[in-house]
């Protein structure tokens, strides 16, 4: 099958970017979006051009390294599926693809389709962790966790850190990401003990780095991990809770 592409090229963070038009004539339905880019890159190198830089790693949807915007949708036309698992056979009649980086002020372009998402890690650094010295944890069987709490914690912990939620948000908010972490750690036994101070630290970093949330819900539509919109509510709940309690836990 023939696919027409417009692909974003940008030499560096401070350079101006532009779209480049290309055609791949021998695309096949079983190709993933990223394999289409692999194929295009082969073509580009054959023609003496530099390949398009884009990120991916596990290509199974677990690592969160991949992520491009396809026809204005982060990750691509198949809802809630990472770029690596978007296959051409699922694109229906769409054969013209405009591919650009995940767009957000918080994610500066490194080169071509590669962006810098370390702002997400700065949220985790600020407080998205649990303060336990190695080797001091009590017997995990003696710490009881209800089946339901473990399952709900997992629903939030499933986040792969790809940043598509930020790119989908008209405000560039990272509430789905931050809320998923706050909700996850509020549901695990040791995480609960510093729930208040974590909320303050993470929300402060969130407000410093990202836009405000207007609950558009665009983030949920693109999230490959199926993080529910209640994660966004968790940001406000955890923050308010810490204000009223005024305690570290």
């Amino acid at each position, binding site marked *: 099958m023939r696919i027409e592409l417009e692909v974003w090229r940008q030499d560096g963070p401070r350079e101006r970017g532009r779209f480049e038009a290309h055609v791949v004539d021998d695309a096949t339905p079983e190709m993933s979006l990223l394999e289409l880019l692999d194929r295009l890159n082969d073509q580009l190198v054959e023609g003496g051009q*530099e390949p398009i830089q884009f990120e991916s790693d596990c290509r199974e949807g677990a690592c969160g390294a991949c992520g491009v915007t396809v026809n204005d949708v982060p990750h691509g036309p198949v809802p809630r599926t990472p770029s690596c698992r978007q296959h051409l056979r699922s694109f229906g009649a769409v054969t013209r693809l405009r591919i650009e980086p995940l767009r957000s002020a918080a994610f500066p372009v490194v080169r071509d389709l590669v962006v810098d998402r370390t702002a997400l890690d700065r949220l985790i650094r600020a407080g998205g962790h649990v303060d336990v010295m190695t080797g001091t944890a009590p017997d995990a069987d003696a710490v009881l966790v209800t089946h339901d709490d473990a399952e709900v914690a997992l629903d939030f912990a499933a986040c792969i850190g790809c940043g598509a939620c930020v790119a989908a948000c008209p405000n560039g908010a990272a509430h789905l990401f931050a809320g998923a972490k706050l909700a996850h750690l509020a549901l695990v036994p040791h995480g609960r003990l510093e729930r208040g101070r974590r909320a303050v630290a993470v929300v402060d970093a969130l407000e410093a780095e990202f836009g405000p949330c207007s609950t558009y819900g665009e983030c949920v539509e693109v999230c490959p991990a199926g993080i529910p919109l209640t994660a966004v509510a968790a940001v406000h709940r955890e923050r308010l809770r810490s204000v009223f309690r005024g305690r570290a836990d």
Partner: protein
Amino acid sequence: MTHGWTVSDRLLDAHVPAGDPLGAWDRRRAEYRLVNPANRRHLKVIVVGTGLAGAGAAAALGELGYQVACFTFHDAPRRAHSVAAQGGINAPRARKVDGDSVRRFVTDAVKGGDFRGREADVVRLATESVRVIDHLQAIGAPFAREYGGQLATRSFGGVQVSRTYYTRGQTGQQLQVAASQALLRQVQRGSVRLHTRAEMLDLVVADGRAQGIVTRDLVSGAIGVHTAHAVVLATGGYGSVYFHSTLAVNSNATATWRAHRRGALFGCPSFVQFHPTALPVSSPWQSKTTLMSESLRNDGRIWVPANPGDERAANDIPEAERDYYLERRYPAYGNLTPRDVASRAARAEIVAGRGVGPLRNSVYLDFRDAIARLGRDTIAERYGNLFAMYTDVTGEDPYVEPMRIAPGAHFTMGGLWSDYDQMTSVPGLFVGGEAGSNYHGANRLGANSLLSACVDGWFTLPLSVPNWLAGLVGTPTLEQDAPEALEALETVARRTTHLLENEGTRRPTWFHRRLGEILDEGCGVSRSEAGLRAALEQVRQLGADFWADVRVGGRGDRLNQELERAGRVADFLELAELMVVDALDRTESCGAHFREEFTTELGEALRDDERWVNVSAWETTPVGKHIRHTEPLAFELVPLQVRDYR
């Protein structure tokens, strides 16, 4: 001298504690030298890699007060490939009454590894596994729970007890996220300095010990030296040398291979596990083989058409003309034979012309009978996410037609050789996780990989590295402009320039694909002397062709993924040669290393315990000659016995 390698009579000492093996780790821990807390901040450790082993070691050493610098080529520590492990993590916590124990774990792992791993290290793995689960749950991994609140477990291949802890089908992801946030906690505290998008390209050895690394900043292209009192490599395995593998596309052997070229011996490089339930390669542009959890073999039946070249659709082939070859050949274990046995049997069917699918390179994994017996809903509940993933990748519906699976290169049991304290043959250079080679012998059991990475990272290296550092209190780190540092820096710069400027015609990926074909054919699931000799010749030729004809292009002073790939493929080519040499040299079949010349009358693997109860630890000289050294293995807890799954 045989086929271009030599065998030395040097026997390696792994420094295993003498005496009762079950108490060995306790005794060793009590002997380790300690460093006064006030001195720790003057001692610097480099940790390369942020997977479960690297993040654990860096976080724990930082927490203890050492100055830690941690490096990853990823943009974030969470991306390390530990993230992709699905099934679970083993721990013989032995709370239940199913007869599990440390000793039982050791028996399973040693036997599963076909008596080619180090028993004493496996004991440590079992002993520390208890704390690993406690710690990871405390730092945020939401392990699956029973309704009574206790940790849930499940069973895994090659084992008769239930000791695998899990979080749905994403155990690796949950452990990796917990470990990387623990690492980021130390970064926030200032005890670990994290360098992302920084790739290690060489090791600095001075005064006979590892004193630093050379890295390239993947964004700016800057090549720099970082020095320290000790270096830990936790950079993962090299299964991606086969091009099509279950590994991530950026997984590579460069850090370990460069360390090898600086003197670190490489243990059993040919020991590679092929996972029997990977998805087959179905198109020329496919970039990897997706792994399907082996739990599918609990209910799926594996078969091929009895007649070669049968063109009919799977569902049109009547029962009498199907060959359920695993059930036929291994009635005791049937579809649940260990990974190496299942992969080999599949390959034998494919080679015999009974493979299925458009390229005839796969076998069927059929759920028809299970759906008839248990109902579609039960099967959906057990495997729904895997079925969805299968449909996603192939466009086929496994509820209606059988899945097609094929062996895929997966885990490398081989890796840098190290002693019991995880120190390689280069003093001051330590190894953790899949980058090492101690535990799994010639075949790894499912769910032991996450465990070995976690035990190394959190509970071994934080004790054994300080034991080394204790001897260096008051010693400054190597100067950045020391001759050894400058030499390594110049070597990297020269290589980088060469790759950039070479006026070749082929992309690095072309060579990588070709290398994968050669290895699959000659040094894959099944090996023969003739096939290995041919592969050796082809790999050497391909290596020469690479340097003559590779084309990278672009600039070195900005992000250049083609350049990154070229360096990794260059190292894969050298490593591949050693893998083939090792496979040729080891004249026996054991675990995943199956030599067609060494089989029983029934065609099963035949070990040679007279000659080969040992680890081959390879040296490569500066001019590229291979020398084998030997570490003899002793088994005190598990008597040598033949694996029999019939």
